[in-house]
């Protein structure tokens, strides 16, 4: 079973996302801020991480940097959940090693297609 970590400070969105993923058969963990997310990533070693950018206590970029520079977590693909209207944020994220991004507002369709794409890439397909 694939493990997914969701880091998102908005509780409604976080819970909804978790629910959708769980219903599709993923094992899902969630964190309400960046610091918790980093700790959980190290602990659970998820197959994929969905991470909001704009968050209190370590934003998405901090989380990404921390995960990518740590050998335990550097191989985990990270997908940004971005609300930013600016392309520059997305580009900056990809430049820092993010594996993909999903633009808010998103529904289950966008969520799954990006996750599947990312997993395929990781598996070298």
């Amino acid at each position, binding site marked *: 079973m694939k493990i997914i970590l969701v880091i998102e*400070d*908005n509780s*409604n*969105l976080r819970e*909804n996302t978790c629910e959708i993923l769980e219903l599709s058969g993923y094992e899902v963990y969630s964190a309400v801020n960046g610091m918790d997310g980093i700790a959980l990533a190290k602990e659970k070693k998820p197959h994929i991480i969905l991470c909001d950018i704009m968050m209190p206590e370590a934003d998405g970029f901090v989380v990404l940097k921390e995960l990518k520079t740590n050998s335990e977590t550097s191989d985990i693909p990270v997908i940004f959940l971005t609300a930013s209207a600016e392309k520059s*944020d997305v580009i900056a994220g990809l430049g820092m090693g993010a594996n993909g991004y999903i633009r808010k507002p998103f529904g289950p369709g966008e969520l799954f297609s990006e996750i599947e794409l990312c997993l395929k890439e990781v598996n070298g397909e």
Partner: protein
Amino acid sequence: MASALIIAHQELAQLKKENGRRAAEFIIAARELVFQKGEKVKRASELVIVNRELIFQKKEKGKRVLELLNANKALTLLNVQTEKRAAELLIAINELSFQNEEKGKRAAELIIANQEHAYQNKEKEKRADELRVANKELAIQNAENEKRTDELTFVNEKFIKSEAALNKLNEVLEEIVIERTSALQESVKETIKANQDKESVLNRISDGVVSLDNEWRYTFLNNAALATHPVSKEATLGMVIWDVYPDLHETIFWEKYHEAMLSKKVVEIESYYTPMNIWLSVKIYPSSDGLTIFSKDITKRKIADQKLEQSLREVSDYKYALEECCMVAITNQKGIIQYVNANFCEISKYKYEELVGQNHRIINSGYHSKEFIRNLWTTISNGKIWRGEIKNKAKDETMYWVSTTIVPFLNEDGKPYKYLALRSDITMRKQAEERILKMNEELEDKVTARTLELTESLVKEKVLNEMKSRFVSLASHEFRTPLSTILSSVSLIDSYSHENQKASRIKHIERIRSSVKDLTGILEDFLSLDKLELGKTEITPEVFDLNEFSHDIIEEVNFMLKKGQHIQYTYSGEKELLQDKKILKNVFLNLLSNATKYSGENQVICLSIELANSIVSIRVKDEGIGIPEEEQKNMFQKFYRGKNAIHIQGTGLGLTIVKKYVELLKGTITFQSTFNLGTVFTVEFPQNILS
């Protein structure tokens, strides 16, 4: 045993001795070794010295070799030079021997010459002897001659006496003849001279002179007249003038000649003579013999006259033009006005009589610098023309500008004796120039001011733009996150289609509602700001209990608190007030939600209210992230968010709205904050908004 001992002893002693000897030998050997070592060291040091010396010598040798090489070079050079010298010497020697030979030849020649000389001397002596003999002979002959001479002299004397008498007679006769002859010659000369004088004078003058007899025949014409006549002098003399000049017939000349001939009065005419294309001045002197006519070609003079006339006319035209369009003034060398024209009077507003005799200074405006005036005077008093623009003063104290040219008139010494000043009125132009200058200055001022304004507004705009772009990214986050929730909730509701999944459906409907509420809240922030800014927010005062009101608010805020956060509440003073409840609620909610949003978990938020002296004081204190000092001044600006708050949800509108609301309540808002330690907001407003 004893013996054995003794033997052993002896052996021992023997051994000891041996040992002693050996030891001594060792010592000696050791000393020798030491000595040899010492020697070696010495040798070594000697070798070192020797080595150094060798090195030194080598170097010396090197030097010597170099020196030798140099010496060799020098020698070679010397040899070459020596050879050259030798060659030169050989040549010199050859020359010398040649010269010697020459000398020898000369010596031989001299000897021969000497011999010849000696021979000649001898010859001379011989001759001298011969001469002496001849002299003696001569002396004898002389004596004889003298005798003869005496005889002859006597005869001669007689002859001379008779001849002298004859000569005297001759002389007297000759004198008489000469006297007669010279008298005759004189009278002839005088006659000739008189005739010649007359003709030559007439010939020499440039006028044509012609004499006619009473029958119009030529009796005389001089060279000048001849030049214009078609045939030779001899052919002309005796001819009738009308035959020589048929063209004269019926001309003015013809008339006048006849007039003079008839009236016997002198007639003068000056007329153009068409056949010859010349102007002639003719004087006709009648006499009893006929006429003598003096004629002169005055064409040149006539042309000059015409030209002069033309120039005079032009000058008078110029003068007229000048007088018409210029201000003309003439002063003497001291600047006393001698003449002004009508234009001058008109523009300077003085009368002619008021100006003439006055110093030119009368029209000075005092506008120009002393240096400017001095330069003008230096220029013209040095005989040079001055040109420039001058501001002058009219009689009525008004100013006028003139473009001026001052021309000095110079006497024989080159010194100016009067000045002619020509001016034209350029006041209009000058005024226009001044206006333009002024307008330019004004324009420049305006441009500067406008630039300043623009720069300021540009800075403002830039700040506003920055804030806007910040707002766009914030707002987009604030909007997109609840929208995402709605989208996912909707799709989840879709999947919970079974009857027994109603609870889940309701949960998601609730989430959708909550997200929509979030969105509405943000929208309301915008709308209320817009309304506030347009001044459309209306106050509806009502009486209420502030303490109760606060409790309600706290209850509402408790739902928003983070884990472990709680609100510490105190209240003192009266409770009733007359204020706009809705606006006050907004203020409370905003400040309290900020306090929880910018504080961490487990931190305390204090709300203390005090109502005293009809003034309500509300303090909201948190222990949160605080506001950096450098950003505190911007906190009430639209869309502004502290650097440390960028990643916390918010629109940057809350405090802007709060401030406007507080102002509507006729109150004030201030805050004190320390970075990372927390913030205290203080709001004060009157108990009765209508008071």
